[in-house]
């Protein structure tokens, strides 16, 4: 067992973990942060995307021991106490979700995308999110939601 500590959604967390434990299992099984779902075991789908030190990572593809000392943000830590993140608002406003299973990962990947490129074109959004699969929406309204959020965040 290996000792790790990390800041997860603003709270200091620590524990003893097996070296093979995946980050997503640490979040879900050990910390009870079940808002981050698991959609595959091959890092294709992106449903488990979280931010580690501000960058999006697929948490099924990272070992818990690798995030020792890092800051992790999941979908459950994205909103402030009184207000959703603009990307969360935009997904609802633009009907960018149906079953909602890909949504946590899709939103976290979008947050990272907009951090890197605050004003993306449709093509840049489609390219930037191609590692996050959705089976319900055909992506049409997801793309719209990210554009909408970009506009809201840049104040235009």
């Amino acid at each position: 067992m290996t000792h790790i500590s990390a800041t997860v959604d603003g709270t200091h967390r620590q524990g003893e973990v097996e070296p093979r434990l995946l980050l997503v299992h640490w979040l879900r099984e050990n910390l009870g942060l079940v808002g981050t779902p698991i959609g595959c075991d091959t890092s294709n789908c992106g449903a488990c995307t979280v931010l580690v030190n501000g960058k999006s990572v697929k948490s099924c593809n990272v070992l818990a021991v690798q995030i020792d000392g890092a800051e992790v943000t999941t979908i459950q830590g994205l909103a402030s106490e009184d207000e959703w993140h603009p990307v969360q608002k935009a997904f609802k406003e633009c009907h960018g979700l149906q079953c909602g299973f890909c949504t946590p990962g899709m939103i976290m990947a979008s947050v990272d995308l907009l951090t890197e490129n605050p004003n993306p074109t449709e093509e840049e959004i489609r390219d930037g999110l191609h590692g996050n699969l959705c089976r319900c929406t055909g992506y049409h309204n997801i793309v719209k939601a990210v554009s909408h959020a970009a506009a809201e965040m840049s104040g235009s």
Partner: protein
Amino acid sequence: MTDTLNETMGAIGRPLRRKEDARLVTGNTNWTDNIQLPGTLHMAFLRSSIAHAKITHIDTSAAKAAEGVVHVYTGADFPGQPGSTCVWPVTDDIVLSHYPVICEDEVKYVGDVVAVVIATEKYLATDALDLIDVDYEVLPAVVDMEAALAEGSPLVHSDKGTNHCYTAPVPFGGNYAEVKAKADVVVTRRFINQRLIPTTMEPRAVVAAPMGMTDEITLWTATQVPHVLRVLLALLTGIPENNLRVVAPDVGGGFGGKLQIYREEVLAVLLAKKLGRPIKWTETRSESILTMHHGRDQIQDIEIAATSDGQILGMQVHLLADMGAYLQIITPGTPLLGMFMYSGIYKMEALDFKCTGVYTNKTPTDAYRGAGRPEATFAVERIVDELAAELGMDPMELRKKNWIKHEEFPYTTVEGLTYDTGNYEAATARALELFGMEELRAEQAVRRASGDPVQLGIGISTFTEMCGLAPSRTLGALKYVAGGWEHCTIRALPTGKIELVTGTSPHGQGHATAWSQIASDIIGVPVEDIEVIYGDTGRSPYGMDTYGSRSLAVGGQAIKAAGERLVEKARIIAAHQLEVSPDDIEFNAGTYSVKGDPEKATTIQAIAFEAFTAHNLPDGVEPTLSGEATVDPMDFSYPHGTHLAAMEVDTETGKVKLRKYVAVDDCGVQINPMIVEGQVHGGLAQGIGQAMYEGAEYDSNGNLLTASMGDYLIPSSADLPSFITDRTVTPSSTHPLGTKGIGEAGAIASTPAIVNGVVDAIRHLGVNDVLMPTSPQNVYRALQAANKGGAA
């Protein structure tokens, strides 16, 4: 557009933002895998890596001794126990199969269950699988359907003596041989409707637990059909139905893949009962791809007969449908769900239909978005294009010449269905306007003339489908063992809040929002005061669940009827309170007022409280205020639409690009146009996925080659364009709300639109078919074959 209504009337038709989303965008969700009960034991499955083999020996002793392992079970522990069942034995002489919960002596497809480990932790359960030693005697695998039917083929079920599951010849109207004899043109094609994998984003998951207060076992499961599942679990396990509660919590997509009774569900329930502890299992994606049922997989031999001026006379449809290794819930019936749709929107004198189901050593097939209707629509829309090419006619003109004109409704088709309403002219006109057909045809001509390596093609799909499964008597006549009704109870609580209990079971469709909109209009209570309860046989005891675009078409009728009953009961109480006759009471937007004296009024919320206290009710009126209805639909509904695709095909590399897609759908009255549009988008992505990207591939030994998301390509955001969508509105006349259904339309219509477009782009090079998916490889092969002098 607003989130909430300040007034109560007119909720229907508004693009209200969804109630469901607050939980889903914040991660405050309740997926089955989220459930962690104290004392849970975890299941892990040892699955066959061989498509067909005898199990000669299993040694589980090392696994049993491993850390954390509580039990290891094999087929010997559950002799004769079925793990699934078929509720639609489509013919009297169908060859049924026993689907064991754990294989006892033979495995029949890669993924079949050989043993199950029960351990205290998920990782430890998986670790122990490696310690189970199995000896197999490999048997020849049956992979190809036609080979399976050939004499001397190895048998999937040796005790049955055949791989032939059933043949259903259906004597639809007319005599095809006669119309063929008088036809000027007969076009024959073989289409391959390839095997697909549903690929819900949420894998399957189950938690079964004895809940302690009674003998009840609760099963939480990622299912579309909690009600159907409860009945079948009772029948298969022997646990009394009244001791079973099935809950579908948040469910992450279904598309038919979760319209099933799975052996993992049966085992979880049996083991929770046997061990007295919660049992949990969540599949990996690899397991899901192998063992969630697959869809489609038909060989379609289609013939169409017509006059030289383009009058369609009749069609002959002979299908081979791959059942896979076992029959599951509606495996044999799935291709037959399409049999009424082969004439599509066209008038014809005769249709000859025959379907043969075949066993193979592959994952069982069953319903996948559209279930039989996409296959039918693909065949008819493809063959009509081929007929147009043969006749030298414009494919849209050929369609216009043959489709049912709007003034001809109601129209009884050659299959004997009566389409109540439709307006193919209006939907097509709107689609052509949005598409810019003339400009695209001009560009196509230029590219052809210049020999541009990138050719342009235009794909058309004018389709209809049947929704609203289903009138129960019709289902009975088709040998389906259940009914097709739907239930709703609407309860007005003492505080004026509303509980709407529905038997539908959503998994992304937004029922909580849309059902509130319907009820709001009928009972006059704001949308935000209505809570929709679903997906739990404990809280919503009656229902037939969600599939086949039935939820609104059938469930919507139950909501309307239940709401009206509630309003009528409240009217009697209101009249008593206001001291007039019920006939003198008007009801509008939640307010009961005396005719001619609108100041004398009360609200439905006030009546709810009166009905609760029961201090001053009229004689003979029972306390509490609710309305309840179970509605059997009088007919199917028939949404339709016109879809157009502009396809670019690189003739040097075979690469296909979808440049523009227009979908104009007519689903009748829309309760929430935003949700309708979302359903269209998602359906399009799946239909386009079949046309361009997806396909389950097996090798000759029965190994699934597309066994990961890296190999089975569902479209990503980079693989699709934005869609241009619109609707025309031709209300259904057989459904009280005028609605028809939209969940499957996109998936049904888009596949032939894409392939027609690809073929249109390269037809002048001698190509008249391209296998799906229209991958660069398949397109290049079609071009090469044409180049060698023979069309595909």
